């Protein structure tokens, strides 16, 4: 035991003096969490792009202006970027995908409306877009409905106005009578329209920070961190092969030290440095992302058990590996597959049940589950079995790994 601590201390000093790799493995998950959080997390204000809409007004009347003017009112103006074009040019631009929709107002649109005839407005939608043309269509529906309603309500008055225009004569008496009729009509409908009987109050639901401790960062960081813990523990453990190359292992083998003590020291160092890095990541999670990790005492045990499991598993993997090149190729693949299946890259909740069975065979899955349960303040009876499982797996892997590594390391010492 004394020798194991002596070796572990030596490895700690070495890593402390050459920390670049480990610092990198700590900073990457923090950076990734920050980026993913920005992309997938909630934000105060969603800035949507304005929808480009083309309008070919072949009528050029007061009515077509009135119709198109609807798109430039209030909130719609923020949503829709309306540009007047010739129909031919509009179609060309649509072919190039430069707009979400093209509105074509036919000739005699105003005249037909004036005369109470049915008119059709053509709406061409960009087939490569899914939602934006739909929004334009909805807006057109509403505006045509509104325009139709105005004409229905004021149909008598409009007919009168048309007769004035047709005759080219505006008698003062008839105009003042028309004004009174319009005023009465507006007053008659105003009690139903102003103020609106039903109004819409807009409110964005904010993160329920007080009700639930869970945040997007609290979801992402443990997942990504678990993946990088594999790499951190490996960065410590791969020294086992380097020491073989350097001749220090050979020198130790000739000393009273047992190879098994050397292997156990690497498992211990790997687990302790992994735990230390996890605690740093947890601290950074609190400082940078305000993650509420739940019961910190429980989290400490999760960190320990997870890193014991990872260190043990890596020792097991190294019993099959002979060179640093093999380690680089094989272990990176194993870690990435485990991370993919275990939920470090994609949430396991989105996996079909068949794949979920494989997820449960990965270290990542159990680590992430434990952290998420701690963050969600899940009852201890849900977390403790995971902790015990990780601890048991870690110890089991360590013993198996130590046994096989003992044999494989002895073999390659003499070059």
């Amino acid at each position, binding site marked *: 035991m004394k*020798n194991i601590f*002596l070796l572990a201390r*030596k490895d700690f*000093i*070495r890593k402390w*003096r*050459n920390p670049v790799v480990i610092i990198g493995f700590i900073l990457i998950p923090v950076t990734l969490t920050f980026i993913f959080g920005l992309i997938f997390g909630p934000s105060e204000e969603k800035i949507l792009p304005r929808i480009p809409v083309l309008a070919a007004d072949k009528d050029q009347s007061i009515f077509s202006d009135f119709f198109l003017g609807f798109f430039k009112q209030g909130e719609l103006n923020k949503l829709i970027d309306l540009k007047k074009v010739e129909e031919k040019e509009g179609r060309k631009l649509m072919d190039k995908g430069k707009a979400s929709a093209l509105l074509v107002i036919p000739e005699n649109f105003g005249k037909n409306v004036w005369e109470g005839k049915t008119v059709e407005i053509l709406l061409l939608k960009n087939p490569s877009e899914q939602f934006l043309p739909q929004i334009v269509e909805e807006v057109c529906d509403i505006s045509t409905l509104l325009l139709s309603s105005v004409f229905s309500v004021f149909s008598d008055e409009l007919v009168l106005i048309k007769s004035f225009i047709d005759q080219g004569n505006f008698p003062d008496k008839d105009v003042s009578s028309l004004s009174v009729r319009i005023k009465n009509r507006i007053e008659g409908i105003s009690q139903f329209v102003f103020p609106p009987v039903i109004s819409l109050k807009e409110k964005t639901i904010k993160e329920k920070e007080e009700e639930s401790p869970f945040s997007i960062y609290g979801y992402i960081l443990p997942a990504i961190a678990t993946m990088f813990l594999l790499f951190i523990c490996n960065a410590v453990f791969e020294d086992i092969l380097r020491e073989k190359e*350097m*001749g*220090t292992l*050979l*020198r*130790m*083998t*000739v*000393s*009273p*030290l047992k190879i098994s003590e050397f292997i156990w020291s690497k498992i211990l160092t790997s687990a302790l440095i992994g735990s230390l890095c996890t605690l740093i990541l947890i601290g950074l999670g609190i400082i940078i992302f305000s993650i509420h990790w739940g019961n910190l005492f429980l989290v400490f045990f999760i960190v320990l058990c997870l890193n014991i499991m990872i260190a043990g598993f890596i020792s097991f993997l190294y019993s099959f590996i002979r060179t640093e090149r093999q380690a680089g190729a094989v272990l990176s693949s194993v870690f990435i597959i485990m991370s993919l299946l275990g939920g470090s890259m994609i949430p396991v909740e989105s996996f079909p049940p068949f794949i979920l069975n494989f997820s449960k065979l990965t270290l990542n899955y159990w680590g992430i589950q434990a952290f998420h349960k701690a963050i969600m303040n899940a009852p201890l009876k849900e977390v403790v079995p995971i902790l015990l499982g990780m601890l048991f797996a870690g110890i089991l892997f360590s013993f198996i790994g130590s046994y096989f590594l003992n044999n494989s390391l002895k073999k390659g*010492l*003499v070059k």
Partner: protein
Amino acid sequence: MLKITHLSKSFDSLKAVDDISFEVNKGEIFGFLGPNGAGKTTTISMIASLLKPDSGKIIIDSLDLDTNLRKIKKIMGVVPQEMAFYEELTAKENLVFWGKLQGVGRKTLEERIKYYLEKTALLGRENEPLKKYSGGMKRRINLIIGLIHQPKILLLDEPTLGIDVQTRLNIYEIIKEASSQGTTILYTTHNLQEAEELCHRIAIIDQGKILAVGTLDELIKIVGEKDIALISGNFSADQGRKILSSFKDASVISLEEGKTILSLEASKKMPLILEQFFKEGLSINDVSIKQPNLESVFLKLTGKELRE
């Protein structure tokens, strides 16, 4: 102190060590001389318990290696060819680490570290990481690590490889001192001068077999008073044999195409031999004559130069 009896080791069909036996006395510096692939490292590795022999016995300090491994490890030191230490750690940290691993007490360890650092002119730089040291300084630390627990037997594998003369002499001095204090040293090298200067006795090993063991004088007697001549040129083995058969006092050690090694009573005969070669129309590229020394012994015993 060290007794090897009928030691053999094969790797598949290759017989790396073939039934060798020798003894090394307490405090003796025993040189193990041979070309690459002669079986030196395999023999040392078996003594260091890194390889298990196929047959034979290794007795160290009256203890059988098979049954007393842990006891023997405590009295054994090793200085491998590689710089087997941690470059991120300082010289002192390295020496403390290796000393503690060998079970040396704190106080004794401090005294020894100071002593050896002073001896190797490294005192004052003990707190610098070894990665800042020069090659020669690293070699000295590599040697001190092997000596820090004052082993009864020390295995040295080419400890002066690639270093300057000053460091080499410093290392010789330390090795000689350890030997005078009773440490038995098994010294592997293929530097003949080094073996001549440092070793009390030398074993010449080639193709897994020990060809000769003895002091330098004893080994030179194998060659006798004769010089060793080496002739290289464009001739076949048969042509060489035909010419040399007419010289009764020149015995052929080895003869192959383009190269022959002879043992001559006196090098005066050499012009006559060369004249004969020229008469036969054979060209000679190189001729060298060696006075009786370890190199000529090696040539005579192995039929090849050590650098091969």
